[in-house]
């Protein structure tokens, strides 16, 4: 009974945390960066996550950073008392909070009951989380973990929220994955100019279609999926509504930084996204600044690994010195068929991808919208190309790599395809 009540309390507290105006310190005060409640909560969780990451990079232990956060939350509530009174205690916020809490609570019970960690979670991500939880240094974490070259944001946040509630149950840390997933869905649906209840309804449809305990077994793909979904909303405004607001780029950059530190594939996905942004209508100097910043963030990730004497690299399944030769060797008809077969199976495994791609086919024949949607089709082609290239370039057994990992690589970057049904709804119902 105590555990059940504790889950209820933790979920309530995490929902509250999303509304604590931590981001006020950085953004909200500036009038030209006004956010609605969905942007606001998303930015909040992104800022929060980035601060955790920066603390870890600065070698501040999880225990200490938890206390800093308690203090930070207390201070922000105190400092922005007036802001909270004027902006947080609103009917709109109240409804959003209640709905978020309800869905979060229903799904958190599922995680707390099942508990099971997946294979990679047991061998890679959870041991890293344990090390963070035990306040070990980055060097120790890297030294004793499998795949020390892997980034660690997922394990770090897992350990942080595990410690945050002072309950010896690791699944508390995984609640954060669920929170970021739910926030990204609510934020994404905000693209549509419909009533609040309809937004909740559509969010619920998406959540029902996507949610499965499988995604929350301690794997990192759901974080990547959520972060790309957050970025997708702003890509929509940039490309389809030609809105060239700086705040969109800020959110994209903050999300990108988390992507870099979550999984190595994240680096490639953000490169694809920022490549697409080069064709946006932002001023040239802003585009240059944006791409420079993203390259600096990527370099920083490797530089920090180098400074701390951690193993620098992407993945030991790839031998970069002769990758081209390996690629040519693996480039056989049977391997191509194998990859295509698994892509096809993955589409049917995840209903949300199937539905999105069906909408993409419908939109393909609509000449009036194809120009607006083009960037998603380009992303789809790049994504498929990327899958073929990485699986054909592996120096280990292609069959094993494809069967064990392709579905996850396809799923994690597929959140952007949710723009297809959104496009369709927008066009059909003029919303």
């Amino acid at each position, binding site marked *: *009974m105590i*555990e*059940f009540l504790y*889950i209820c309390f933790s979920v309530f507290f995490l929902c509250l945390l999303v509304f604590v105006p931590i981001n006020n310190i950085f953004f909200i005060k500036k009038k030209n960066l006004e956010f609605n409640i969905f942007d606001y909560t998303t930015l909040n969780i992104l800022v929060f996550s980035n601060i955790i990451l920066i603390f870890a990079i600065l070698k501040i232990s999880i225990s200490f950073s938890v206390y800093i956060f308690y203090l930070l939350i207390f201070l922000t509530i105190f400092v922005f008392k007036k802001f909270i009174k004027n902006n947080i205690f609103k009917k709109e916020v109240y409804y959003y909070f209640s709905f978020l809490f*309800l*869905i979060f609570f*229903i*799904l958190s*019970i*599922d995680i*707390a*009951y*099942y*508990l*099971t960690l997946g*294979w*990679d979670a*047991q*061998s890679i991500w*959870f*041991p890293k989380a*344990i090390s963070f*939880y*035990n306040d070990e240094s980055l060097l120790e974490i890297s030294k004793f973990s*499998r795949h020390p070259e892997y980034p660690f944001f997922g394990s770090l946040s897992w350990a942080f929220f595990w410690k945050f509630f002072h309950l010896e*149950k690791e699944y508390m840390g995984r609640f954060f994955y669920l929170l970021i997933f739910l926030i990204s869905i609510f934020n994404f649906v905000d693209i549509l100019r419909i*009533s609040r*209840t*309809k937004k*909740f*309804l559509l969010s*619920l*449809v998406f*959540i*029902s279609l996507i*949610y499965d*305990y*499988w995604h929350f*077994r301690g794997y990192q793909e759901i974080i990547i999926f959520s972060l790309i979904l957050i970025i997708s909303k702003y890509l929509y405004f940039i490309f389809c509504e030609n809105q060239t607001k700086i705040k969109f780029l800020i959110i994209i950059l903050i999300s990108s930084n988390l992507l870099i530190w979550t999984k190595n594939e994240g680096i490639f996905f953000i490169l694809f996204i920022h490549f697409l942004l080069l064709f946006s209508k932002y001023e040239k100097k802003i585009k240059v600044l944006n791409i420079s910043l993203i390259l600096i963030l990527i370099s920083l990730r490797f530089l920090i690994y180098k400074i701390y004497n951690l193993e620098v690299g992407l993945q030991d399944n790839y031998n970069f010195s002769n990758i081209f030769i390996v690629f040519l060797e693996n480039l056989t008809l049977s391997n191509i068929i194998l990859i295509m077969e698994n892509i096809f199976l993955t589409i049917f495994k995840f209903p949300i991808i199937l539905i999105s791609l069906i909408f993409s086919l419908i939109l393909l024949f609509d000449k009036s919208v194809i120009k607006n949607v083009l960037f998603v089709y380009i992303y789809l082609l790049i994504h498929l190309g990327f899958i073929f290239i990485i699986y054909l370039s592996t120096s280990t057994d292609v069959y094993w790599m494809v069967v064990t990992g392709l579905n996850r690589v396809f799923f994690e970057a597929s959140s952007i395809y949710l723009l297809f049904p959104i496009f369709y709804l927008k066009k059909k119902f003029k919303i």
Partner: protein
Amino acid sequence: MKKTDTILKKLFKRKELQTILFIFFLICILVKNNNFFKNSFELIYTNYESRLQSTAYGFCEIPGHEYSKNLGTGYIFFIKDKFELKKIPIIKDFNISPNQRWVFQDYDEINKKKIIILNNLDNDGSPKFKLNKYKILHNHKNNCLFLEKND
């Protein structure tokens, strides 16, 4: 009564009632699909440790729930609790499994004298591990064992 009638009328006149009903319907599906009430019941009546030992990963040959493969990790949790282990024993799983040392979380020291054997029985029921040099501390149907090396 009249007051209730007017409230109901007002409610049903609302444009968004249909949407609210849809939301309610979807929440019901979500609750049903994720076995919310059954899982809540289990959470209230079973503690965290026993869930780890029995349902989360399966206990030796007894499978856990749909998300776990027969790794036998539940048996390691059981031995850890029963014998109050403070050092990590050698873990030998005859099934293909990831490194299960994470069960011992913050333990650093390894005790090479103690060994946990998982999935010891072959398809024909014969044991895969020779026990002659070991003292049996716990035996679960000869399939999962906790052993100590004889001096």
